């Protein structure tokens, strides 16, 4: 057990030792917006972990579902308990590749990110269009995309179906800093 732990620690150190190549944020923002004739629902999570490997252009994101804060307590409760079941699936993740990562400059560059997004235990392939900006000290990525609730087995009861959009707009903003 101890060996495994030590090994793990070494790997972890190795992973971050050449750290200048890795950019990270622990306070990335993801918000979503559901627009329907009955009411608009909005929630924001400002504790998103996102890591970009500046060598390979790989990107990994982890999101805690309970960190999404809603305007109304009741919406937040329904979201956590009934829709995303955050006690069973506390996290959503994304793993992907930033296409043409080398071409990102210090000015705003449009990029595509291919990857797999996992919400509510269901994984889907996705292509996200983003705007990226890269300097020595920061990689900023912003953008938005739509997800389909049915793709992630999120079941909306018929009584509230006209209050919740089937397609949810997700916006993100990650200001990655070099990992030291």
């Amino acid at each position, binding site marked *: 057990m101890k060996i495994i732990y030590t090994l793990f*620690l070494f790997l972890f*150190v190795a992973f*971050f030792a050449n750290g200048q190549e890795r950019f990270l944020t622990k306070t990335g923002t993801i918000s979503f917006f559901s627009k329907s004739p009955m009411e608009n629902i909005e929630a924001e999570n400002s504790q998103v972990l996102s890591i970009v490997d500046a060598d390979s252009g790989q990107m990994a994101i982890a999101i*805690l579902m*309970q*960190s999404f804060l809603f305007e109304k307590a*009741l919406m937040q409760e329904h979201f956590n308990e009934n829709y995303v079941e955050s006690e069973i699936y506390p996290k959503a993740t994304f793993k992907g590749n930033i296409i043409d990562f080398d071409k990102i400059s210090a000015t705003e560059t449009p990029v595509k990110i291919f990857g797999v997004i996992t919400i509510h235990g269901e994984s889907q392939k996705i292509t996200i269009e983003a705007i990226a900006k890269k300097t020595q000290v920061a990689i900023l990525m912003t953008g938005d995309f739509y997800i389909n609730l049915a793709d992630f087995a999120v079941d909306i009861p018929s009584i509230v179906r006209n209050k919740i959009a089937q397609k949810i707009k997700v916006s993100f903003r990650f200001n990655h800093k070099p990992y030291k």
Partner: protein
Amino acid sequence: MTAKKIIFGILLLFFFGAIIGYKIYNKPHVNVAQEKAAISSTASVLLEAFSADETAANLKYLGKIIQVKGVISKIEIVNKKGSISLETEALFGSVLCTLTPEESLSIKELKIGQEILLKGICTGFLMDVVLVKCIIKN
């Protein structure tokens, strides 16, 4: 006469129903400042619990109001919301506490290295243990 009474009764029922419905719909958020903490702990103990067994720690801490003591290792302001990282004995990982917008106003008075007592709702574990809606206790 009885018909009138019945109609009046039904109207009264609707009226109260509407009030109750409205109250439930506008139910206030948990007020971290007023609620008692379910668990008091230190940053190191909290991180150790999550890195040892995340599933068990989730059961114990997720969604609960936690009071946590620790030493400030990082202060950050993103979107007007302040975040405080608390040092732990572990090599990696800390306890990341995001303050409420009101509490964020007093973040300027804090210094790195200072010991602090915070209260907030635990939402889980990424690289750090994450708390939302934190208030500063001292």
